């Protein structure tokens, strides 16, 4: 098994606010992240695909293809967006690093055509990141070339 990782960056704004909480509770729970005008981050996303290299090409998954998937599914959707209002997949969710990473997993997992998605690591800052392993069944055998 070989693990291939590609990194991208996107910049986006968000705010944390639960309409079920009072204004005071929102401020207490979410602190600065509750600023109603929002705030932004330079997110760094590392996507790891696991699989056996194709004997003919020596590749787990063509990096060009992975790059295009990341551009289409993540950058086009999230870069320079206000995550609360402009990303439908996050509607009704608080766009914490945990929830964004889970959405990214759900967007990418069905698009990986060779090997399988092993891990999504999303950095909100260099000192804060979330790893998502999907359903946690990361040890499943690669499908020998495609799923």
């Amino acid at each position, binding site marked *: 098994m070989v693990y291939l990782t590609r990194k991208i960056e996107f910049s986006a704004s968000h705010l*944390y606010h*639960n309409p*079920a*909480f009072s204004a005071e509770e929102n401020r207490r*729970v*979410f*602190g600065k992240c509750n600023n109603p005008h929002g705030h932004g981050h330079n997110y760094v996303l590392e996507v790891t695909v696991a699989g056996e290299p194709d004997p003919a090409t020596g590749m787990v998954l063509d990096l060009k293809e992975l790059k295009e998937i990341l551009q289409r599914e993540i950058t086009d959707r999230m870069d320079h967006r206000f995550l609360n209002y402009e990303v439908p997949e996050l509607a009704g*969710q*608080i*766009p*914490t*690093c*945990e*929830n964004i*990473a*889970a959405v990214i*997993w759900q967007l990418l997992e069905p698009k990986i055509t060779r090997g399988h998605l092993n891990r999504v690591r999303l950095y909100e800052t*260099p*000192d*804060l*990141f*979330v*790893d*998502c*392993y*999907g*359903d*946690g069944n*990361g040890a499943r055998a690669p499908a020998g070339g495609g799923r």
Partner: protein
Amino acid sequence: MKLHLSRRYRFSASHRLHSAQLGEEENRRVYGKCNNPYGHGHNYVVEVAVSGPVDQETGMIANLGDLDAFVESEVIEPFDHKYLNEEINEFRENVPTTENICIEIFNRLSRFPRARLERVRVEETGLNSFEYAGEPAGATHE
């Protein structure tokens, strides 16, 4: 969804690698420069990974304010700007290698009440780091 939340913290401390079980010459041979009797220091980075269900109300595994306060009181405040060999009880007998520092920090943080501790990674310098994820269930340490 299986999710791990990781956060990085920093402290600076001094230590000396010297084992009471080894002779003077053996200590010098094993630990080299790190055996300098006056000690020396590092800027340590501690990466803490926790897991647990994402709270539907907050979207969080753990509130970072709670995690930060716990790491501060259990690790940063006691370790920062200290001489580990003398000022941390666990290192009076135990050599404060980064392996042992990593295990000690894991043991302290495993008491975090609001999420499950998955892993502690300690960088002694930008060029070396150590990870500890506890002992597998059923195994005994030491």
